[in-house]
């Protein structure tokens, strides 16, 4: 559907022309010419939510992958003499598994892509991976799926084709438990907690991960109460259940629309204002609904986006300028990382002399380009990606460090991203208080 054809007809014609001219002139440099003519290319697929409940994010994710596509291709043209990817095709998932499977089938079978970026929600990513990508030997790198199930997915144990550039919720759950049990800030300690979570893989997974880690630290989780995904006019029954045993703090694992409604009720009806937040609540909407006074000082956690790391700043600058966007929604930077990692793996495959770039060829090189050892490449800028391709051409190793974090894939295909502690300020804003780097996060 949406295509950005960099190696389009015009450019290809120009390339052929240049090639012919060069061929007539430089008989003395047969090696370079052969390398140029023999550069294998592949098509990069993407599934993104353009319609449905996450419709607002689809275009951002597509543009992020498009940026990665353009940068890797520009680098490959400069260093290797030709693009590595011929097309970037983004298909709609409708934020639902059934159409997502159909779109993935189209990409894998009709378009013949060896790699797919995407799957925003975990339900979609697992469904497309298990029923299409893994049996077809296609690499899938999810950019927004945080369900812990993906780590242990049995279908992927031997196939090893499902990766993701976002950390599983397990880590955020652990950091949230550390925060509330006083391990991070001595004066921020609670003995008991209750969670109120949105009933989908995200909310349920994070709530369970937090509860397990909090109990392991000696705290009591008095209740974990789910609420529907659709915003309700009132949450009094859920709040009554969560606050029944008078917890010290209420952990809100919901989206801003929900939180804005139920926190108002918690304050006005139940007189309860001791709250902790997660990434999904880091939103203006919550402040608008409640006012800054009551929120000031409340702490929360968030994975991924760490505005202090240079790769994110580079990415933010390039992305907002290239596409005229004024904000970067969650998981946009991880979509970019997924695109770059796949692109660089393709470059590496081409340099290794692979004649055809398949899903497994890319998979075998994904960790090579993204993990240490090697020269660190701080993503986000064209120069950095060009440098990465140069190092690869010269036979060196690279360690891509992405906009969402170090982008080092473990054996399960997961990455560990930094976790931020943030708070609502007195003047109605949100600020990052502290960033916990991946190596400081305990395993449980």
């Amino acid at each position, binding site marked *: 559907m949406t295509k950005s054809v960099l190696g389009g007809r015009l450019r290809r014609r120009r390339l052929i022309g240049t090639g012919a001219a060069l061929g007539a002139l430089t008989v003395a440099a047969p090696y370079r010419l052969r390398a140029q003519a023999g550069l294998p290319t592949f098509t990069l697929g993407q599934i993104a939510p353009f319609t449905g409940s996450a419709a607002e994010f689809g275009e951002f994710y597509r543009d992020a992958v498009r940026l990665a596509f353009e940068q890797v291709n520009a680098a490959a043209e400069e260093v290797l003499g030709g693009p590595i990817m011929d097309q970037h095709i983004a*298909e709609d998932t409708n934020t639902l598994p059934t159409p997502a499977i159909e779109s993935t089938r189209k990409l894998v079978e009709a378009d013949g892509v060896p790699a797919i970026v995407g799957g925003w929600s975990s*339900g979609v990513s697992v469904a497309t991976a298990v029923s299409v990508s893994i049996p077809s030997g296609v690499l899938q790198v999810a950019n927004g799926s945080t369900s812990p*199930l993906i780590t*242990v997915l049995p279908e992927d144990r031997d196939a090893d084709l499902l990766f993701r550039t976002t950390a599983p919720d397990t880590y955020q759950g652990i950091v949230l438990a550390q925060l509330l049990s006083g391990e991070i800030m001595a004066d921020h300690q609670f003995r008991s907690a209750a969670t109120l979570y949105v009933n989908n893989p995200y909310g349920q997974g994070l709530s369970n991960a937090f509860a397990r880690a909090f109990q392991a630290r000696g705290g009591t989780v008095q209740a974990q109460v789910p609420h529907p995904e659709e915003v309700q006019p009132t949450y009094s029954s859920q709040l009554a259940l969560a606050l029944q045993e008078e917890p010290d703090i209420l952990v809100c694992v919901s989206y801003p629309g929900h939180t804005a409604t139920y926190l108002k009720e918690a304050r006005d009806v139940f007189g309860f204002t001791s709250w902790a937040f997660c990434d999904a609540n880091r939103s203006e909407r919550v402040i608008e609904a409640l006012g800054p006074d009551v929120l000031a000082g409340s702490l929360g956690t968030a994975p991924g986006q760490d505005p202090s790391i240079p790769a994110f700043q580079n990415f933010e600058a390039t992305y907002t300028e290239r596409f005229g966007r004024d904000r970067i929604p969650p998981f946009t930077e991880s979509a970019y990382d997924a695109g770059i990692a796949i692109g660089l793996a393709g470059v590496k495959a081409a340099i290794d002399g692979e004649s055809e770039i398949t899903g497994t060829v890319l998979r075998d090189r994904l960790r090579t380009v993204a993990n240490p050892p090697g020269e660190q490449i701080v993503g986000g800028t064209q120069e950095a990606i060009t440098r990465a391709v140069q190092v690869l051409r010269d036979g060196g190793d690279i360690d891509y460090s992405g906009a969402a974090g170090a982008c080092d894939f473990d054996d399960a295909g997961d990455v560990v991203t930094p976790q931020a502690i943030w708070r609502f300020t007195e003047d109605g804003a949100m600020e990052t208080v502290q960033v916990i780097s991946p190596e400081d996060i305990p395993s449980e």
Partner: protein
Amino acid sequence: MDPATLVKAILLAPTLTILVFALVRIPWRARVPLGLVLGVGGAFGAAATLDAGLLSYLVSFSIMAGIYAVLCLGLNVQWGYTGHLNFGIAGFFALGAFTTALVTTSAPTGTLAQYSQQAFGLELPFLVGIAAGAVVAGVVAFLIAIPVLRLRMDFLAIATIGIAEIIRLVFQNERWLANGPQPLRGVPRPLYCTVQEPTCAWLPAPVAAWLAPLAPRDYIFIYLGIVTLILALVYLALERAVRSPWGRVLRATRDEETSTAMSGKNVPRVRIQSFVLGAAVMGLGGALYAHYTVTIDYSHFNPLFATFIVWVMLMLGGSGNNRGAILGAFIIWGVWSGTAFLTEALEPGLRAISETLPDRSAYLRWLLVALLLAAIVLYRPQGLLKEETIVSRHLLRRRGAAATTPGATATVGGAPPAATAPEAAGRDPGGG
């Protein structure tokens, strides 16, 4: 032709043969050789000429369309023949899918059990699973039918929407039952071992050697055969049922309930029977779906892709006509998937209009589907294939004999359009 293509062609041949049998309406004596020739020839022709990827795509497309066709047949029993305005297809679809998943998977153990929960996992064979899916959907339909079928038309529609949502929300919220909001995975694929290495232990060596060129990604060719077979069986069974006296009572109940009751028929019982039969067929469709996608969760059974698209399929194909139901499923699913290619083909034109327009093609696709739906309702309310006014085999035979005599009407199984159009328009579910 390389070995893999050859095997694929042979696997496709039965499906295409069945298709020709179903579509071509000529006497059996000529139909058998014609079906074989066209089916086998078509399969080899397609396998030889089409690009391997495109062929696979068409196969996976046909599987999904086939599953929708089963759902459509189920709805046709309820709406097409009996006039039940069931907007709760998603509920029976989900029941069939989750039942077969629970019956055929194994309960998670070890670290996986931390992330995946289910009430039980019986590890029974595929056929038991899909039968259980149909039975459970039928039983639930029966329990629902007693209070709900007192309602008519729009009230029934509201009640069934509610029931479908309840079923979906139960599966979303009850973690112990089927992993709650998280995906329930590991639904086995029937005969998957035939494309694996090593192959099934029970498979005779020659067959195994013959199937050897197939890779796991070619499994869809096997599953297409399974779906086609089940679709054909459901079609034959339902055709038999609706052409029987029982089927005529259904249609009589739909058109003139009071007269039917006056003729001594037990109308409430017939209405319940048809509701249960339709729901069981939908459950079967759900079971086929679960074995195809391998993983399911509540979000698969959302009203748009599990209820309303089936309605559009039946409305387009022709309610009250089983062949129309199947045709509608293939056409609508083709339109939905085809618009993805269409917007791609339109890209240069779109770019000429505005630089950013191709970026919006995901939304243009919905526009095309909506326009098509509006066009159907406006110009073809009775569907592509109209309901047959005479369905009894005995009457058809007599008519067939009469048709050969001069002066008698030559159309068999197709009434004058004027007779059926108002009737079909009158039963239009709020769209017309």
